[in-house]
């Protein structure tokens, strides 16, 4: 089977100890220090040698990162709570159904038992030219994202087009979730949407030495205030990464007019893609089919599906429109005239 390269493995039991382990590590190559949580992304990537590290620091023995707490601002979830742990939390299921749906759609039960929420938010961008073994990548002379110089998805491109692969990210962006990032220099809190950059290589705006410790889903995004929906497109009913996802959050006022709206697309860009005009088109209006169709058309324009995952890009682009339409209809309580994905229907 594929084997890991030799590495030093550390499992600190406190955040301070973990932060200390990050200091002094090189940024690249075999000298690099990397964090690992559930390991469902990093370990296979290291076996295939497209992510490298001399030292891997596990966050899984740090108790304070494994809590779920209700605070004044919202539901705060520690970054190493497993995806199954998120799904088993009654508050998540009852108050954030779109989020629960998104987490339930991630991979398969065994991987959700290992994978963590923080890991999913930071999951490496993916590309069929990149997520391959060392030997396979040798046969294409590597790619821009690791060791090579060309982006094989768009050979004239100066940037890497690997796509965002998180299902939790577009949904939590739509719900307005915030993150806490801690480093030995201090801590900061940012909107989740600000974490991401539209670049396949440099896709996370984390600073060196920072650890993602918690995610807060605000109270005003819960089901009392907000209607959410999540639609994921993939070939099979389980296991597969998204080739497109649509996360919708709608806030309605007393008169059933939209007071706030957010639509994010997953897997059709190097970061979750905000359909910015959704807000513009919907706010202040009573939602109807025509408005939904307009947002859906815009979603298709905002999506940049590339030939770097399953299914042909042109079809994924069309599906961005259809799925946005369906997700908005679902959130707005209008009839969904689309064959629903088979997956994600059972939450636990």
């Amino acid at each position, binding site marked *: 089977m594929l*084997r890991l*390269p030799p590495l030093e493995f550390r499992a600190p039991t406190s955040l301070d100890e973990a932060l200390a382990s990050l200091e002094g590590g090189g940024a690249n190559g075999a000298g690099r220090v990397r964090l690992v949580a559930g390991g469902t992304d990093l370990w296979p990537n290291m076996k295939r040698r497209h992510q490298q590290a001399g030292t891997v620091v596990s966050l899984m023995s740090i108790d304070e990162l494994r809590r779920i707490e209700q605070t004044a601002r919202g539901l705060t979830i520690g970054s190493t709570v497993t995806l199954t742990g998120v799904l088993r939390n009654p508050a998540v299921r009852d108050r954030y159904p779109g989020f629960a749906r998104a987490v339930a759609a991630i991979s398969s039960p065994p991987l959700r038992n290992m994978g963590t929420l923080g890991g999913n938010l930071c999951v490496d961008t993916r590309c069929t030219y990149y997520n*391959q073994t060392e030997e396979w990548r040798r046969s294409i002379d590597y790619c821009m994202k690791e060791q090579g110089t060309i982006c094989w998805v768009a050979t004239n491109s100066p940037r890497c087009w690997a796509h965002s692969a998180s299902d939790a990210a577009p949904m939590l962006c739509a719900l307005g979730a915030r993150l806490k990032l801690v480093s030995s220099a201090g801590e900061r809190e940012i909107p989740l949407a600000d974490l991401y950059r539209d670049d396949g290589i440099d896709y996370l705006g984390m600073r060196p030495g920072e650890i993602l410790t918690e995610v807060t889903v605000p109270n005003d995004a819960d089901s009392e205030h907000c209607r959410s929906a999540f639609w994921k497109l993939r070939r099979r009913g389980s296991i597969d990464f998204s080739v497109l996802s649509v996360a919708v959050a709608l806030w309605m006022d007393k008169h059933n007019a939209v007071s706030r709206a957010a639509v994010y697309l997953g897997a059709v860009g190097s970061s979750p893609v905000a359909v910015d005009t959704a807000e513009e088109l919907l706010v202040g209006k009573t939602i109807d089919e025509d408005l939904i169709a307009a947002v859906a058309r815009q979603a298709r324009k905002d999506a940049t599906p590339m030939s770097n995952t399953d299914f*042909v890009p042109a079809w994924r682009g069309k599906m961005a429109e259809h799925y946005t339409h369906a997700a908005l209809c679902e959130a707005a309580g209008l009839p969904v005239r689309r*064959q629903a994905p088979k997956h994600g229907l059972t939450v636990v």
Partner: protein
Amino acid sequence: MAANPKVEAVGRDLRSGEEYRLIGTAFRRVDGRAKVTGRTQFADDLDFPRMAYVKLVRSTVPHARIRNIDLSAALAMDGVLGTLVGAELPDKFGILPVSEDEHALAVDTVRFVGDPVAAVAAVSEDIAHEAALAVKVEYELLPSISSFDEALRTPEPQMHDYADDGNIHKKVSLKFGDVEEGFEEADMILEDTCYFEGNTHLAMEQHSAVGVPEDAGRVTVYSSTQTPHYVHRALTKVLGLPASRIRVVACSNGGGFGGKSDPFNHEMVVAKLALKLGRPCKVTLTREEVFYCHRGRHPVLMHLKTGFKEDGSITSQHLRTALDGGAFGSYGVASTYYTGALQTTTYRIPNYWFEGARAFTNKPPCGPKRGHGTPQPRFAFEVHLDKAAHHLGIDPAELRLRNLQPPDSVTANWLRIGLIELRECIEAVVRGSGWKERYGKLPEGRGLGLACGAYLCGAGLPIYWNHMPQSGVQIKLDRSGCVAVFCGETEIGQGSDSVLAAIVAEVLGIELEDIRLCVGDTDLTPVDLGSYSSRVTMMVGHAAMQAAERARDIIARAVAAQLRVSETELVFADRRVFPAGDPDDGLDFSAAVVAAEARYGTLGTTGSYIPPRAPGRYRGAGVGPSPTYSYSAAVVEVEVDPQTGVYDCRHVWMAHDIGQAINPVLALGQIEGSIYMGLGEAMMEEQVFRRLPKKLSAALVHKMPSLLEYKSPGFHDMPGITSYMIESRDERAPMGAKEVGQGPLLPIMPAVVNAIFDAVGVRVDQVPATPELILKGLEAKARGRPARVGPTRFPRVDYGTPVEVPTPEQGGDGRARHDPKHRGLRSASGTMKDRDEALKERRSATLTTA
């Protein structure tokens, strides 16, 4: 004579069609407990003292000459024990004697990304992995070929010098009857071009092998193989050792599906390294490497032209196929013939012309996957029939019923057909699915599709020319009452161990617990050719029955003498041997064996089986014959989203003409497994490759050699299944039992696309039928264009002068016209050898008698 006729039937003539005691019941499979408790030792579970771990270094270029292999960095690593390169194993091997074109490790040339170049052995798998990455190979690139069309256009350089024509490996043209006159008589002629994408077996167990050096320069190879006997032959050739010094043990396979039917590089390598290093050497392939071993479904482009009368009867058919074979021969010659051979087995085709060609391409070699060469033309034919039914205004089920090939007949291409229960199969799925009430009448977006298929119950001829049995069984009995059964058969999960044990237990009237099996071991067991071509129940079953009946007869003679009764009165049942008229006056089975052992000495019997000779006498007649054929019919219900093309299979009704289920639960497992695999091929599976822009790169790589990205259905994707086993014992088969491992796969792919047509009116003439293809069809339909997606052209291929063979109806004798060379000669084997050539090779057949 019999007090209880039911009991009598058990001990007497098992072929009479009466009740069995064990056969036909849902007994627990003999290897079941070990498998579910983790006690089964698969090849990768084996561990020996001082064992080294082997890793193959594989080519990273699609086609090149090897300039230099630098092993120094690998050899300098701590823990590296040794290396191996191609020059140390210069003799070629290959499953078919006509295409022995593989080296254990590439000698001068690499032919695809993944072709093994060198091997390293180390004290741990980690070190072996690092050492393999440290091997540097310099290549001098050659032009590469990625498709059948490119192979046609690129005759030079030849990938193999034995090819029929440039890089076209094999060309076949067989013409039966008066094809042109048949078309003249037709009221309607239909033409279709269809494509079947390549796909792979995806067995859960990755290939693994361990070579163990033994005393006196002998070597044992344990392997996850479906064909230990053929591995034995290949090792003999490659290692240059007498067969008697090589032992091959087939471990339990975690699935095979045809993917472990070839002798493989890694098996040769661990055997050689074990001898070279004097240590056991193990290799277990990664999933990616399994995609490179491949031998899976050939991508096949097909052109089908059929003449129909107004009443739906077929007057003539012309089928052309173009196979993308990959870099080596593998089973390819047989695969090529199989894209035409079984076309005649279901419906009466009085005149038939088959032309087939296989190209060499710089990709992993294709070979036999469940259905071997047959699913592709079957797909084309069944889609074609669905269209014909529409054009003629005949219900698709009715059209098929009108054309059924009669039982006990000989087809235009000289296949002898046995019992056919295809009518019952079609009627069962028509009834079950509510076809008559629902077909063509479901709301937009929902539809039903019907298709049929037929398959071999064992290939009539062995891979290499010989007159020896294709399966042998030995039975040893002694005073313990334990019956030890020895057979070369190979359990690949299909239940062959259980079939073997059950047949012996049935004949001797004992329980499965009384039987010990020793299987798949070339030192200890008589030869069986392996688990392929759905041959095991047929051939091992016949051999087992013969051996068991001989044992029964010896025991019966001894017991009859002791009890002073006639042998013919004796019944074997409930672990006893007793006179039918006086059940209390008998012996326990072990006492009966004691009686026999005392009277006759040490007891042992053998049984063997050679299929009956087929009537075809033309060159190429070796592919297609079988003792009898199984038949299947399926209806699939789909729901299609007309805006997106996304669809879902809702239900599958499958009827299979099985003859007699040895164990209905195991048989159902095979049916449901076939449906699962068929849906994968119909909906999503594709082994496809990608080139990079030629200005920037010469790469030609597998697009997605991983279990994650090679899409195969999961639990969520499985529809409900209703299976019908049509049990009608076929006298040609042991206990009447036909095959069930492959046949039920065949109707699924065409039934799915036929259902898509019923649902949304789009013809998808290729598989996998992806949502984007369906949407393309829907968009074309909305624009008023033909609602059809699929290939639009067929390449111009020179298939050569057809071999013309008069049909039985024309009074033919099975020989080709004007073909003195093959006059009266049996067309040797699956290898399509001339008899003269084959006779020269007779010496190699002495392997099994040495």
